[in-house]
């Protein structure tokens, strides 16, 4: 096992790959019916999407009539990235869209989460939140003119700067699952999980 890592390192592997297969399982948005989702990836400059969609659009969902009031999507997310640096690890940004009483498309909520940083399978529950008008006046105006606050580019949710002036209302949850595998992270010296002390063997 250690020889394989050493060979890969000597062969000059300079980049690693991240492969994620999963799905957006369901959304709980009790206030709203007729929802569809759009997902996008946000990542750093050292990352390159090798396989998979840049943007995915789901089906239109109606709430289940039972007490759960659930939107089930089972919407596949499959992507492979290549990178030289863990910084800028990809994030999945999801926009949940619906229709208001005037028939216009309106953002019902956003969610953002990192793709997993360890190999394995994981189920995540991620909150959904919607930006709010900054004042009561603009909120009333928005309701009248059917203009609801939204992010001009949802990718801002992947950044740490520029969100301090936004007021949001969290109003639901999204359940996702991911199965993750990596290639060459060990060859490049990265330790992603506890207990991987393969270097100690080299010293002996």
């Amino acid at each position, binding site marked *: 096992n250690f020889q394989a890592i050493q060979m890969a390192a000597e062969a000059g592997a300079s980049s690693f790959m991240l492969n994620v297969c999963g799905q957006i399982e369901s959304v709980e948005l009790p*206030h709203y019916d007729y929802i569809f989702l759009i997902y996008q990836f946000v990542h*750093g400059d050292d990352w390159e999407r090798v396989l998979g969609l840049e943007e995915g659009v789901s089906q239109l969902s109606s709430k289940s009539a039972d007490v759960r009031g659930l939107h089930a999507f089972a919407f596949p997310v499959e992507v492979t990235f290549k990178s030289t*640096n*863990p*910084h*800028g*690890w990809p*994030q999945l940004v999801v926009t949940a869209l619906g229709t208001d009483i005037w028939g216009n498309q309106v953002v019902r909520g956003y*969610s*953002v*989460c*990192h793709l*997993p*940083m*360890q190999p394995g399978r*994981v189920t995540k529950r*991620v*909150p959904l*939140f919607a930006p*709010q008008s900054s004042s009561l006046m603009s909120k009333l105006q928005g309701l009248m003119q059917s203009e609801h606050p939204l992010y001009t580019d949802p990718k801002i*949710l*992947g*950044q*740490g*700067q520029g*969100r*301090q002036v*936004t*007021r*949001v*209302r*969290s*109003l639901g949850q999204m359940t996702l699952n991911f199965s993750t595998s990596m290639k060459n992270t060990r060859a*490049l*010296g*990265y*330790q*992603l*999980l*506890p207990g*991987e*002390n*393969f*270097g*100690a063997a*080299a*010293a002996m």
Partner: protein
Amino acid sequence: MAEVHVIGQIVGASEFPENDLFCKWEAHFGPAWKRLEGEVSGQTQVDCPASGEMAYFAHPIDLHFATRGLQGWPKLHFEVFHYDWAGRSSLVGYGFAHVPSQPGLHKIDCVTWRPTGSFMDEVSSKFVGGGIQLKRPDLVYELHDRRNVHSTAGGKVHLELSVILRNFDKFGVEC
């Protein structure tokens, strides 16, 4: 050089007396550490939850350090503020958490406290709003003598952080 990546989110805050909250955060580290990439501070969105008691920030943290030693391991410090209906902010909790030294995914609940004023301070804070703050916020995360500080518990800040280490094994360090 050994490298550390800390990547994740400030997920949110809960168990505070009010739910309309935002959080300021900052990373601190010793002189043996050098920040290569990533922002060391930020301020989250203000969440006014529709229901439930958790305010969600979903604020990304992505830091890349290089280090020559274990001393001064990075820590993140938080200040949670309540944002009221009139748009004023008052401090409701100070807290800090060390970046975990073990690689992998970590879910961290960071406890917070707020300084307690005199009886008159507490009464006026209930009626007029606002709260007292520390003059020197580094008291929250540095090894200073705190014996003159009187505090009351605040709620919790929830973090989900993944740590990736590089070349630690080459230097014989076990995490």
